[in-house]
């Protein structure tokens, strides 16, 4: 996900940066409870859902066979009403990046690989979705081969072929495809940034990617050839942004509003910003899909419903509201305490982690002294920051840069923040006194949302006790990124967050901490440029063993936190969601960071 805006309305699926919550991406956290207080009512605590850690691994060909594991008690029939914040805007797989979009399109768009979730939501396995397996690597992970399952069809009954798959990747190079992830384009062209567009202009002018890069030697085989190893390609391809497109039905820009389905449902009608109606795809074969179900006759997805509205509807639990859900809207923060402490409502909640991790990022161009950054970190009141964001329902306190959704995640706390989450201004003041920095002025930039403003006020108050004069810079949400991303800029600290695109550190460490990526508009807003870190990034990227690289990323994250300190972690994002009591199969999906839509049924 990518950078998020306040309010959890849009979270991007791989990674983002600054701000707090508005659109979400995906991820995990430090294990419910911890330093932050949980629900006050013990009875409710016993009945409400719990945040669960999840593990992720790459599966086998056997794991990739359909049908999906049945959901206990599932029934067929009915149309589910769902209420969402806003229209996902894009339906073309190549334009899909936000969590909300990833969640909804998973009902009708599939890729070569995907995440198969266990019924309790704790285990994720990367499996072949359209492909027979999660891919076969050769040539030191530079060449990957996938075979399509036999019998796959588009919604119009046309067979899905390797030509379609190749086309799906080629069209991502077109200049009109600007919203989706760019990993594959960069890897195939061996370029960075938007350089891939010069490498290949896309297929619409009749030119194809050379077979030396991407080939479809027969109707069911697709071969990717990279210049460098990409051991976690199965994870990358599981992003809905790499879903398949039927070549013969590719209508370019128009495809973004009416894609062709290869999943269990197809679009019946779409009224922009109002409603998306899905019906069963008669050409979807459950035996060829290890991930999704088709229990419902359809979905009626209503857009334009605020979190307050959906919380009120789902608290009601009567009539039509008992048969409804919101796939993406969390419980309204103002109602979270009531929801979680009222047993009759709390039992219809699910909780989970998102891939986001918040930090107070230091601008190292301005705050050059590590000891100063350390003193600020020790004084930082991360518990008040979490409280301002919504408390226990919004997240768990973080000790490092990784969300618990990351493979190989472990809790660490080099600065003792989990033990003293309110900050230790006395110790910080002593450190600053030694440095002759007492009374120093620092500028803190943040979005002008109520949560951010409250957090900023708490930071200002606590750091004042440490002898730091915090100047608050309240920036309109709409211009926040533009101002923070500028290199150089006039701010010393920013409130920021980031979410991984897939549960491995290579979608966290390089974009945030690679010193060679410092540029206006890029995501290394701390301006960290540590030659050792840069060298390690290259070294880990070259690893061919995913498990080894996962550990290496975690270790490098620890090194950066302990030795460079480009920011102090605040909290790992979590989400609480309500659902109607007559809806079954409700599980929070840590990867999608929303309710899993593919297993729901009406009781």
């Amino acid at each position: 996900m990518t950078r998020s805006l306040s309010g959890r309305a849009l979270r991007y699926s791989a990674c983002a940066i600054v701000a707090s919550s508005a659109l979400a991406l995906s991820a995990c956290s430090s294990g419910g409870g911890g330093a932050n207080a949980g629900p006050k009512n013990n009875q409710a605590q016993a009945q409400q859902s719990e945040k669960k850690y999840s593990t992720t691994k790459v599966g086998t060909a056997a794991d990739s066979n359909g049908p999906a594991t049945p959901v206990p008690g599932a029934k067929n029939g009915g149309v589910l009403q769902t209420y969402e914040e806003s229209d996902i805007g894009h339906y073309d797989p190549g334009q899909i990046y936000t969590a909300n979009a990833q969640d909804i399109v998973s009902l009708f768009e599939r890729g070569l690989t995907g995440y198969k979730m266990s019924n309790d939501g704790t285990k994720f396995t990367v499996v072949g979705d359209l492909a027979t397996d999660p891919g076969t690597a050769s040539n030191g992970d530079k060449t990957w081969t996938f075979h399509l399952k036999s019998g796959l069809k588009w919604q119009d009954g046309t067979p899905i072929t390797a030509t379609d798959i190749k086309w799906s990747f080629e069209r991502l190079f077109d200049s009109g495809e600007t919203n989706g992830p760019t990993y594959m384009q960069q890897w195939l062209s061996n370029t960075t940034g938007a350089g891939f567009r010069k490498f290949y202009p896309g297929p619409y002018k009749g030119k194809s990617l050379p077979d030396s890069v991407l080939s479809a030697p027969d109707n069911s085989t697709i071969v990717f050839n990279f210049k460098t190893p990409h051991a976690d390609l199965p994870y990358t391809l599981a992003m809905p942004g790499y879903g398949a497109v039927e070549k013969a039905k590719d209508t370019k820009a128009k495809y973004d509003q009416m894609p062709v389905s290869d999943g269990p449902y197809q679009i019946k009608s779409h009224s922009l910003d109002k409603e998306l109606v899905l019906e069963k795809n008669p050409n979807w074969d459950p035996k060829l899909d290890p991930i999704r179900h088709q229990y419902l006759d359809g979905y009626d997805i209503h857009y334009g419903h605020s979190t307050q509205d959906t919380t009120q509807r789902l608290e009601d639990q009567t009539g039509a509201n008992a048969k409804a859900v919101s796939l993406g809207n969390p419980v309204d923060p103002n109602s979270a305490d009531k929801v979680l402490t009222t047993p009759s409502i709390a039992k219809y909640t699910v909780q989970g982690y998102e891939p986001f991790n918040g930090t107070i990022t230091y601008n190292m161009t301005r705050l050059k002294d590590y000891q100063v950054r350390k003193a600020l970190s020790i004084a930082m009141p991360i518990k008040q920051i979490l409280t301002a964001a919504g408390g226990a329902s919004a997240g768990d306190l973080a000790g490092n840069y990784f969300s618990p959704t990351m493979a190989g995640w472990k809790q660490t706390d080099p600065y003792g923040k989990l033990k003293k989450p309110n900050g230790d201004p006395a110790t910080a003041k002593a450190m600053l006194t030694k440095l002759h920095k007492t009374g120093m002025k620092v500028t803190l930039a943040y979005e002008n949302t109520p949560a951010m403003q409250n957090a900023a006020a708490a930071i200002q108050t606590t750091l004042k006790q440490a002898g730091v004069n915090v100047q608050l810079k309240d920036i309109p949400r709409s211009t926040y990124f533009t101002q923070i991303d500028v290199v150089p800029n006039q701010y010393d600290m920013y409130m920021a967050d980031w979410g991984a695109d897939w549960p491995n550190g290579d979608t966290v460490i390089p974009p945030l901490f690679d010193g060679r990526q410092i540029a206006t508009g890029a995501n290394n807003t701390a301006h960290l440029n540590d030659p050792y870190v840069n060298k390690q990034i290259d070294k880990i990227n070259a690893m061919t063993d995913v498990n080894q690289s996962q550990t290496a990323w975690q270790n490098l994250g620890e090194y950066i936190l302990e030795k460079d300190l480009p920011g102090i972690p605040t909290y790992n994002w979590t989400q609480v969601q309500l659902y109607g009591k007559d809806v079954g199969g409700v599980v929070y999906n840590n990867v999608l960071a929303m309710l899993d839509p593919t297993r729901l049924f009406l009781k």
Partner: protein
Amino acid sequence: MLRFLIRRALGALVVLILISAITYGLFWAVPRDPAMLSCGRDCTASALKIIHHNLGTDEPIYLQYWHYMVGIFAGRHFPVGNCPAPCLGYSFDESTPVWPIITGRLPVTISLAIGGSVVFLIVGVGLGMIAAARRGKLIDKVATTLSMFMYSMQIYFLGPIALAILVYGLHLFNNPAYVPFTENPWGWFVGLLIPWAVLATIFVGAYTRMTRSLLIEQFQEEHVKMARAKGMSTPFVFFRYAWRGALSMIITQFGMDFSSLLGGAIITEYTFSLQGLGAFSVEATDKSDLPSIMGIMLFGAALIVIFNAAIDACYAVIDPRVRLN
């Protein structure tokens, strides 16, 4: 009359051109690059450049404005897609022309505006007439107090309370929702009843007080006094002279209120999750989708200018002196 209408139409056109130029200028004064909305995660300078080219925002501003104005009448073609006339730009966020978004949301807003207007005109003006006719009596005091109370209410306060009581408490209504009138007239009526009532509440107070004071003022006019002195019946004097005198001001106010409502009843739409122009303007502003903001601004401004011109034309019918002026 024809000259009057032509004069008003030309004036309206000049106002619209001025508004469009100012809005377009302000559009680029905002320190936010709207192209970032379409920029995904790796939003580098080169990526932004491509998006600016796709959306025609890489040209000098005067040229952009010219193309924008031409597009309203002739349509435009962007590298990312066609934008048929009237083209009000291409939404960065929705990846679609702005005009279809506006027209898609207009039925909701029109329904809300018409229904709410009917309620507040009947109740507000009616109460004001009764209060004026019974000035100083108990009913006048009740109507005046009630109007003051309603005038001080806010939709963001009344709306949730109405929902809590009528929908979630007593379960008398389902959640408000827009159903197209052409599909289900009864569903349309029932689905919008609560929003209409809440929207009308704040207007009722204003119209009651305005109507009352205008009528009382008219009662003091010489020609009305003369009519009474000549022995004409009270109802005749009331409607033939006083009411007609007050009507022009009421129509003026109604024209402005109604055209504003057509531009989007922002809080009402947000409170009841109705996807009209008001909700669209909030979303566009929230996301800094400047082409959408620009489109809504122009559309709203055009409505206000057109309605004002129409009202002026009505004056000419109601008050013959307007033609002479």
